[in-house]
């Protein structure tokens, strides 16, 4: 009889501890503060599960189709939007942090992310942008969509404007004896071709496009930040600012770190105490970025050079 009692008692104890551990792990009953753990929420009705703050990283230049699709590392707008949508759908996520470390990107890419963030705001989720080293031009465009912006005092931001750059290889071709014959359907079809200079008329057209894209940038800041046009135009001349200068001019709402941004977002979302952090990132993203960084860069072929010189509107810090 005695022999049977000990195993039964041990089994009961083990099953109880197994159930307790599963309950703790599945319902987030552990609070992590200053590197210490405690089960202070074990007997409280409301678990931490509802107090989620999601983090989405926006790193590097933002373009549709990165320079190498294999190593895009989840930085294309499609990937960023996918991550934002995942958090948008989750009921347990009350606030989202956009951790931005980007000099900007193409106009359309940046606008797609901006629209997604505005849609999240409409669903009464708090969005706070946290700026890293750089959040300039398109990086700032994206941040402007957030409810609030937190920047480090030394963050590089601003550079509000549009840029379009075209190479002109006319002299080079002349030197090496290459002449390009162009057959086109309309007189503007080869506007911006690297084989010749722009005409005055073409320059006017391109300037019009730039002005319109600039106007869209200004409007995006006006809508996102609830600012009047006069104020936006006072700093939207392409110049860069440090985080502190941007704070003085009202481009950002608070100076602080990523952790400050998390706590700020939690406070705005009405989360009491330490929030639960949910990081949305693509698997292998960091690894692929690392590989991309250590890959040797090869001299560009003419085709690649052409590809890089294609006409594109950018909200980017040069």
């Amino acid at each position: 009889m005695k022999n049977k009692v000990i195993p039964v008692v041990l089994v009961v104890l083990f099953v109880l501890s197994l159930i307790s551990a599963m309950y703790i792990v599945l319902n987030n009953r552990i609070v992590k503060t200053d590197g210490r753990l405690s089960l202070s929420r074990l007997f409280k009705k409301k678990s931490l599960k509802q107090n989620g703050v999601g983090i989405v990283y926006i790193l590097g230049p933002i373009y549709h189709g990165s320079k190498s699709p294999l190593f895009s590392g989840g930085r294309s707008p499609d990937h960023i939007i996918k991550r934002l949508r995942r958090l948008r759908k989750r009921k347990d996520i009350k606030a989202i942090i956009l951790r931005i470390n980007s000099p900007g990107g193409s106009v359309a890419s940046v606008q797609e992310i901006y629209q997604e963030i505005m849609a999240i705001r409409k669903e009464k989720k708090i969005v706070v942008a946290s700026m890293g080293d750089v959040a300039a031009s398109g990086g700032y465009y994206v941040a402007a969509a957030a409810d609030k912006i937190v920047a480090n005092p030394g963050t590089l931001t601003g550079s509000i404007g549009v840029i379009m750059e075209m190479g002109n290889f006319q002299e080079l071709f002349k030197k090496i004896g290459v002449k390009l014959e162009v057959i086109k359907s309309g007189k503007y079809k080869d506007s911006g071709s690297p084989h010749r200079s722009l005409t005055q008329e073409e320059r006017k057209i391109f300037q019009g496009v730039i002005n319109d894209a600039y106007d869209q940038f200004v409007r995006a800041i006006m809508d996102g930040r609830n600012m009047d046009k006069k104020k936006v135009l006072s700093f939207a001349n392409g110049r860069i600012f440090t985080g502190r200068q941007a704070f003085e001019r009202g481009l950002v709402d608070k100076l602080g770190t990523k952790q400050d941004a998390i706590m700020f977002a939690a406070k705005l979302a009405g989360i009491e105490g330490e929030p639960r952090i949910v990081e949305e990132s693509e698997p292998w993203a960091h690894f692929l970025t690392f590989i991309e960084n250590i890959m040797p860069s090869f001299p560009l072929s003419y085709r690649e050079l052409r590809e890089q010189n294609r006409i594109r509107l950018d909200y980017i810090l040069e």
Partner: protein
Amino acid sequence: MYSIELIVNFIIHPRITVDSIKDKSTLLPASISLVFSMISIILSAHVISGTTRSVSGLLITTVFLLIIGCGAWITLTSFIHLGAEIGGGNGRVTSLLNFTGLSTSPIILLIPISLIIVFLDFRPSIIFFICSIVILIWVCILLMLSISQLYSISMFRSFLLVMSPLYLIPLTVAGIIIAILMIVLLL
């Protein structure tokens, strides 16, 4: 109940239990021990690190670790059996498979230990690390006792056998590399 009794007896009186079940098939208790050991590793690690998981996430991790655990179970048994046979021991590989599985049973204690550590608000990672080392030594001792009795060899030899994957795997890899190099250089 027989399986649980067997696991408990194996932890408390390993010598007597090994002698009594040497020739019996105890694959079920060995499998139960291994499965719960794997679950204990996952749950205790989550409790100690303060990580939260969804049911599906926890399930996927458990299944993944179970596959690795089963692979390690079979590999370790094969290595030890091979080593024991070469070293002059005489025993059945199926019995050894049972004992290697049963030897993992102290790992089950990681769950109550992790709960106690977090409840008492100790420095969790250090205390848990020390406890894990103690349990690992306990598992090795149980395995050594089982091998020693199963193959009728000395405790020192069974110690060398338990540690065999640690030196045999690097040696095997080195052997393969040397063989490839020799083929490449000689051809």
